[in-house]
């Protein structure tokens, strides 16, 4: 297994781990952390796979930087909504589906 594939497979592993956390947990902060782990996993796949045999490729780096910005913005928005929700309802999870 080449070095690049090690990165890619770790990325897939992280993505799966994050997905499991995202679905299994009910606490919104834990789900948010899980989302960030999933995000890091997909960035690792992006950078890792693109290095495979094609030399240095700047495009995935540009994509990952954009992706990180998006992830930070999403996380910030989620934290704001979560804080307001916690203050309004006193709960750290979402009510069950009606």
């Amino acid at each position, binding site marked *: 297994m080449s070095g690049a594939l090690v990165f890619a497979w770790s990325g897939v592993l992280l993505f799966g781990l994050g997905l499991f956390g995202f679905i299994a947990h009910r606490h919104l902060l834990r789900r948010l952390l899980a989302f960030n782990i999933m995000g890091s996993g997909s960035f690792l796949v992006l950078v890792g796979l693109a290095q495979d045999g094609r030399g240095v490729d700047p495009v995935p780096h540009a*994509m990952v930087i954009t992706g990180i910005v*998006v992830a930070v913005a999403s996380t910030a928005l989620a934290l704001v909504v979560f804080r307001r929700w916690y203050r309004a309802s006193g709960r750290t999870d979402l009510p069950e589906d009606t």
Partner: protein
Amino acid sequence: MIGLWSVPLLFALPLALGILSLLVTPAWRPRLIFVGLPLLTLASVDVLARLVLEGPRIYELGGWEAPLGINLVVDGLAVGMILMTTLVASLCALYARVYLRDYPASSSFFWPLLWLLWAGMNGIWLAEDIFNLYVGLEVMGLAAVGMVALRATPQALAAAMRYLLAALLGSLAYLLGVALLYATYGTLSMAGLQEAAAPNATTHVALALIILGLLLKTALFPLHAWLPPAHGGALTPVSALLSALVIKGSFYILMRIWLVLGPEVTPIFTAQLLGVLGAGAVFYGGWMAWRQHHLKQLVAYSTVAQIGYLFLFFPLVTGTGPEAARLAWDGTLMMLVAHALAKAALFLSAGNLILAVGSTQISHLVGISRFRPMSLFSFGLAGVSLMGLPPSGGFTGKWLLLHSAILSDQWWWLIVLFLGGLLSAAYIFKVFRMSFREGPQIDRSITPPLTLDVTALILASASILIGLTAHLPLFWLRLGSAFGAG
């Protein structure tokens, strides 16, 4: 040289106005629409005129070539979506300017979010590569979540949170799919992918991830659970924008990617499966809409049902003859545009009815037909299009889909079209039955401002008119697509 500027203006202007509206005082924020709406309308019409006169083209942003620069695709489909967005969002903005006077706290943040939403949507319609589609999807999605949360009640916050979690999961699945596609083919552009696409394991996994992510964002049954609380519980102009336009964003991406990769790469049962899920959405959404007691929840479940029709596109366009595929393309786009117009009208007029009776319950509409006929008329006109009665856009769309299904020998989709229409009739008439029941003889309803009624009526009339003049928009939409201009 306005032609060169109108394309980037379509997303640069809303973005600039979004930032500007955060800098000015809340009282000035609604007034920016008097700058933004005329300019965006002008730019949209200019883009259409150039499409008709000069044909479809690829626009290189800033003169940089891909992959360093960003390519924008200006074909019939993109321009059609831009015009639809301009019409619906402008009318929703005019409605919101009056409607939000009762919600000063929400109003100050509605305007920046509206512009960001608009920028995201126009970014999606124009993007030529799968990564810029992702960026557009995120800009649009985050603005939409913010809009759902505007009301700041516990229900609205829970709905926003649920929507955000679904949207985040969907976009990460999409992003991982993009990563795999880039690793396999070394290109992000649609045209490049179409040339290179081959059926192999990586492409299958990538496409599965992309489709799943987009289904979650489009709220296709059974992944629809986040939609009714988010759309039904938001402020009325927000509900209209989300149901009419935002869900179309992810569907549009799915449609484009499918046409590029789908037929060559995917096994035939994927298309049938998407159709079956669509059928499930039509039945389940229609049934749930009929069971609602809350007027806006009924309209929101109707969106769940109407999304289902759009997914009949996939079985009808994959592996069928060119004529059936062309009819499926025409029919789906007609359904999409008609639904955008009708659903915006339905939400806005439902908002007017709720304002008039001061209650969200359908049972409280008793006797309203006597006092607020205009609001009810808009609701009815939009309902005609949703039920698919002639001569509305909904009828034309269903008629084209029906022809496509007959031509490709897939009679089972006829049942979906027919029963779906009956179910829509059931839930629309549920509202009418209450409204025409004789109630109190004295007018105790509140008269909504005229702007609210007029904007709803224009949208409802447009959903009928598009059916009467379907030929021309369908011709424009076909420009630059694989289905020719014949």
